[in-house]
């Protein structure tokens, strides 16, 4: 486990979140999916892109255990190889001096073991994760509330709707919702995130997960899942692959592979009568060798490893898919519903500019605006302070320990110097203004109507252009905040602060990429249509849904689905649950309610809505890997025919030796080389199966052309080269 690096990664984004400065947007340094992947790989997160050959050795015992025919029969292709191995071994016993039969048998067994090894390695990675999860699931003792009294019962005896109490230091005994109190909880056992999170009753942050630890305070939790079916149980099953079911596409591919296997079986079992007529008796060993070379063993061996590795790649990105079906569906998604806040924009409105009215300077406005906001702890308020500082150098504070101006440093003047006597007026829903009274100056900032009313009340004048500025900002999708002052010169409006939603850096590029992949993005926001449109235009999304209610969201999903489209969305609230359930890919945020987590088919432990895009890419990558290796596997057969057919029949029809275009040294060596190549190619492709084919967002046409060139043509050519090399090596062995 590399919890350490994971902590680091998440920690960084946490810091960035809390300070909410534009320069430190959580994903500003990760403009697109592939660079994000690269970043993961550089940090050495589990496996993604790395493959340790030692894993093969470690998984060997598991691979041998999988030789059980009852297990093997699930993969029709490899089952045929297993039967073939048994047959050749039996026939070799009948003729023990035949080194050829023994060698072929050995390589056939290796073929089967290599296939099992691929699966075992893929599963092995999950096992490591499952083990560390199990540690978190140590048997807990729950403090169950019955009436007003408390009793201690084992966590496994809890039933749905039981109420339990947890205090600082307690391990939460099961999944549930906080119904009373607020507490900080350490969820690192599940998310790998060491910073504690707040869980409180009511609202969207009430869900707690069994196995996590309460760090402070006391909460009462209502249990919502049965023991053995908790989140952590499901997670363990999932990463271990125990709950793994074949996905629809995997089943379809298996059917195609099985039918190809039958076709080749027919081609091989009908060969002996043809050969006998031609005057060539074919031994069982040779027939099995030919069969194994022809049936699609490469993809047959790697198919399940590809599926497991796909799930694993999600787990590495801290996403839990509740079914493989969901991962596959992710590759097919054609509409993405993205919440504006947190996904497209940084989540808070930020001051973008100060627009003074006629007769006031920008600096004057900035000074007043900043002064009035020093005590304002809302993100908007903070952004005003920072903008004034950055743009006009106001209230410059020498850097302390922080390499960037932190809130503490900025707020330092509040308690000292010029502002010691300041009286802070807080924002209320009635006044819709905040401000400060200091040194005979009274500054107010707030909604246009309220501030104008205040100025008039104080007997002041409202500059004529104030209204125009306000209007212009509103139209651009921003929020105007009026700033007014009353001092010796009377009450007057100074100007307008332009607050705007800041679109995360790099989002436009990402949406362009998605468009090239054929995916439509729809921004979901509670904003009015005007604001929504401005942000949608700036971010470059294809469409937006303004003033969205949960019902609107649901209707939108159903509409898209009625048109045959697959829809993906993220959500965290209880009112998102129906939409999450309706969407083909519903990613619930781990911070969300248990209703949301229950409804979605994936949970993002990092609670990062942008990850939806990566999930889609992983889904696509999974399907591409399957298709690429299938193509490769089938294309390989051509070369194998050219190796084996002349080897078998050139003796009776010398003309067929012209097909021996590889000029293989002897018939035995030709057959053996083909079998060895067939076995080794499985091992050679294990890393690719685990890592997945390299994926870059591009149009389907380009992607097909590229993959056909690499895996189709490559599959045609590679075995010619490989078999020739093996043949040369074999012919070097003395005595053959």
């Amino acid at each position, binding site marked *: 486990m590399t919890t350490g690096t994971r902590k680091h990664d998440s920690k960084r984004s946490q810091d960035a979140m809390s300070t909410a400065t534009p320069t430190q947007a959580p994903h500003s340094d990760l403009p697109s999916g592939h660079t994000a992947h690269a970043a993961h790989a550089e940090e050495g997160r589990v496996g993604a892109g790395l493959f340790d050959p030692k894993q093969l050795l470690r998984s060997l015992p598991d691979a041998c255990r999988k030789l059980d025919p009852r297990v093997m029969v699930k993969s029709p292709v490899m089952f045929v190889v297993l039967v073939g191995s048994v047959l050749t071994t039996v026939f070799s016993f009948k003729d023990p001096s035949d080194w050829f039969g023994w060698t072929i048998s050995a390589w056939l067994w290796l073929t089967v073991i290599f296939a099992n090894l691929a699966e075992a390695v893929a599963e092995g990675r999950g096992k490591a994760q499952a083990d560390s999860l199990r540690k978190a699931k140590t048997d807990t003792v729950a403090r169950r509330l019955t009436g007003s009294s408390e009793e201690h019962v084992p966590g496994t005896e809890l039933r749905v709707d039981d109420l339990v109490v947890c205090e600082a230091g307690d391990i939460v005994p099961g999944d549930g919702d906080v119904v009373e109190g607020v507490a900080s909880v350490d969820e690192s056992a599940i998310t790998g995130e060491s910073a504690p999170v707040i869980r409180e009753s009511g609202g969207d942050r009430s869900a707690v997960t069994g196995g996590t630890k309460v760090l402070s305070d006391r909460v009462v939790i209502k249990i919502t899942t049965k023991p053995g079916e908790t989140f952590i149980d499901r997670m363990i099953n999932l990463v271990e692959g125990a709950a793994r079911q074949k996905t*629809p*596409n995997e*089943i*379809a*591919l298996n*059917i*195609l592979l*099985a*039918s190809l296997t*039958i*076709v*080749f079986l*027919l*081609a091989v*079992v*009908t*060969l*002996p*009568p*043809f*050969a*006998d*007529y*031609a005057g060539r008796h074919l031994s069982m060993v040779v027939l099995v060798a*030919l069969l194994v070379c*022809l049936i699609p063993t490469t993809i047959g061996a790697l198919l399940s490893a590809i599926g497991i590795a796909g799930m694993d790649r999600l787990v590495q990105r801290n996403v839990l898919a509740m079914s493989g079906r969901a991962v*596959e569906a992710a*590759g097919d998604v*054609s509409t993405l519903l993205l919440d504006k806040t947190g996904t497209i924009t940084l989540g808070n409105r930020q001051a973008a500019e100060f627009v003074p009215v006629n007769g006031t300077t920008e600096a004057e406005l900035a000074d007043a605006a900043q002064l009035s906001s020093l005590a304002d702890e809302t993100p908007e308020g903070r952004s005003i302070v920072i903008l004034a500082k950055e743009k006009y150098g106001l209230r410059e504070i020498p850097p302390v320990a922080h390499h960037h101006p932190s809130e503490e440093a900025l707020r330092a003047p509040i308690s000292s110097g010029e502002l010691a006597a300041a009286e802070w007026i807080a924002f209320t829903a009635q006044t819709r203004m905040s401000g400060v009274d200091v040194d005979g100056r009274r500054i107010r900032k707030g909604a246009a109507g309220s501030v104008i009313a205040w100025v008039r009340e104080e007997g002041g004048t409202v500059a004529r252009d104030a209204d125009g500025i306000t209007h212009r900002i509103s139209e651009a999708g921003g929020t105007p905040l009026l700033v007014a002052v009353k001092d010796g010169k009377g009450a007057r409006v100074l100007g307008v602060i332009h607050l705007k939603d800041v679109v995360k850096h790099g989002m436009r590029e990402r949406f362009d990429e998605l468009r*090239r*992949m*054929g*995916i439509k993005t729809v921004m979901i926001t509670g904003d009015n249509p005007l604001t929504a449109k401005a942000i949608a235009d700036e971010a470059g999304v294809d469409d937006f849904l303004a003033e969205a209610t949960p019902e609107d969201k649901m209707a939108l999903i159903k509409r898209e689905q009625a*048109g*045959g*489209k697959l829809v993906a969305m993220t959500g965290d609230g209880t009112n998102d649950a129906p939409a999450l359930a309706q969407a083909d890919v519903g990613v619930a945020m781990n911070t969300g309610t248990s209703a949301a987590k229950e409804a979605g088919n994936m949970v993002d432990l990092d609670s990062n809505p942008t990850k939806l895009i990566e999930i889609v890419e992983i889904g*696509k990558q999974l*399907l*591409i890997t399957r*298709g*690429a290796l299938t*193509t490769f596997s*089938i294309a390989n*057969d*051509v070369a194998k*025919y050219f190796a084996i*057919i002349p080897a078998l*029949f050139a003796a009776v*029809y*010398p*003309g*067929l030796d012209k*097909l021996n275009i590889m000029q293989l040294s002897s018939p035995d060596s030709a057959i053996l080389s083909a079998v060895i190549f067939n076995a080794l190619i499985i091992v050679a492709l294990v890393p690719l199966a685990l890592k997945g084919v390299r994926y870059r967002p591009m149009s*389907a*046409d380009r*992607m*097909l052309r590229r*993959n*056909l060139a690499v895996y*189709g043509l490559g599959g045609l050519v590679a075995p010619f080269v490989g078999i020739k090399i093996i043949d040369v090596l074999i012919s070097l062995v003395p005595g053959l």
Partner: protein
Amino acid sequence: MSPVLAGVLQLLALIVALGLAYRPLGDHMARVYSSDRHLRVEKWIYKGIGADPDTQMRWPAYLRGVLAFSAVGVLFLYLLQRLQGSLPGSLGFRSIDPDQAFNTAASFVANTNWQSYYGEQAMGHVVQTAGLAVQNFVSAAVGIAVAVALVRGFARSRTGELGNFWSDLVRGVIRVLIPISVLGALVLVACGAIQNFAGIHEVGQFLGGSQQWNGGAVASQEAIKELGTNGGGYFNANSAHPFENPDGFTNLFEVFLILVIPFALTRTFGRMVGSLKQGYAILATMAAIWIGFTALMMWTEFHHGGPAFDLAGGAMEGKENRFGVGGSSIFAVATTLTSTGAVDSFHSSFTGFGGGITMLGMQLGEIAPGGTGSGLYGMLIMAIIAVFIAGLMVGRTPEYLGKKIGTREIKFAACYILVTPALVLVFTAVAMALPTPRHSMLNPGAHGFSEILYAYTSGANNNGSAFAGLSSDTDWFNTTIGLAMLLGRFLPMVFVLALAGSLAEQQPVPATAGTLRTEKPLFTGLLVGTVLIVAGLTYFPALALGPLAEGLAS
């Protein structure tokens, strides 16, 4: 003019003629199978057979129609042959033996037209016209109907309804096959093919001795024989016989008739699924394989070296002087790439490679352009296989024409592609393993093996051409080839219709930039590759021991 140039010019003329017919015929068929109106004569037929042409059928009902109609056809044709001896207008021929009657009945109903009898010495006017000629029409119409049902499966959504079998059958005969074959027969008569009900003539030969000629409704049978990709000749010599195929022009005209419906159906397909480009992509795939095979055939037949060959301008053995190497190569490829099986030359006498090309043509599944209807549905099945693999490579669950290729669809497609290889290889292997069937071979070695491989390839793929050189009128061959023909025809239809039903129920997925573009040349290339690789890999060992061993020997 050199024979090579003549051959190439004939091919070009053929391409131009097919190109001219493509649009009007394809659009006409699309209208025929989409229209709501019934012709008066059609209404009489519906009344006569007691069918309601307006009920929509789901796939099981459609399939029941196909099977019931065909079963009745087999039974009727069998009885007609068995009773020939007591029927008037039979030129005094005996009733046909049970095994041969079964074989012939299966053969004509399955649109195969494998003939283990000598037409002019076994079948009288009644069986020829009332039995065989009728099946030439209806078996072709059944093929088109099944193809149209599959096309509707792609075109329709959220319904299981595939149209009405009886209406598709009757319209195919009345509005497509009869009008064109009447025109075709007139052209053939004008060019010298015979059309009468004359009896047997005794004619003296140049070198003494005598031979018997009989007349018959040859030109009309010839027209539908080619147009419906049937291939059963009036005479044993088939289209090599001057009464059936008098000269070089009729030869080319017959090839045109063979190819015109299968190619034009791709336009019908494009029209009905609402994207002509999709039809062009399928057309391009078929055309690429057809032209490629014809070019290869001409190359191997013209190129074949040696003094005798050089004098003749190529491998002339078994070919008619009036057609030459070029005309014979064009005919041989067209007849084996469709389910026709008519021959104007003897495939057994082609070069080793040439014989292999005719066999591989059938082994591709006869889909370039294939039989009337069966070519289109066969190619669409291959397209589904190609889309499945390629679709994965673009990172989406594979879809074709907006329909997802899921577990059910791939299951039916996989079963489809299993049927004919299983029939061909298993029957050939059993025949080779048993002592008696091998006695029918007239040649030793690889060529003898080719004779049997060809027979089952031709039967199971519903081609019906014979390699020649195999005495196939034995109990064994009549029975097994008869079975191969029936299973090779109707099992795939079961899977095609089941697939059509499954597709019709789906709701279409809209195309996006992430969708595999199946109307692009890249996809055509991929489809050609898939067709060649799937068939090539299946039959490579068998072909290596037959035509390849022979062709590479020199």
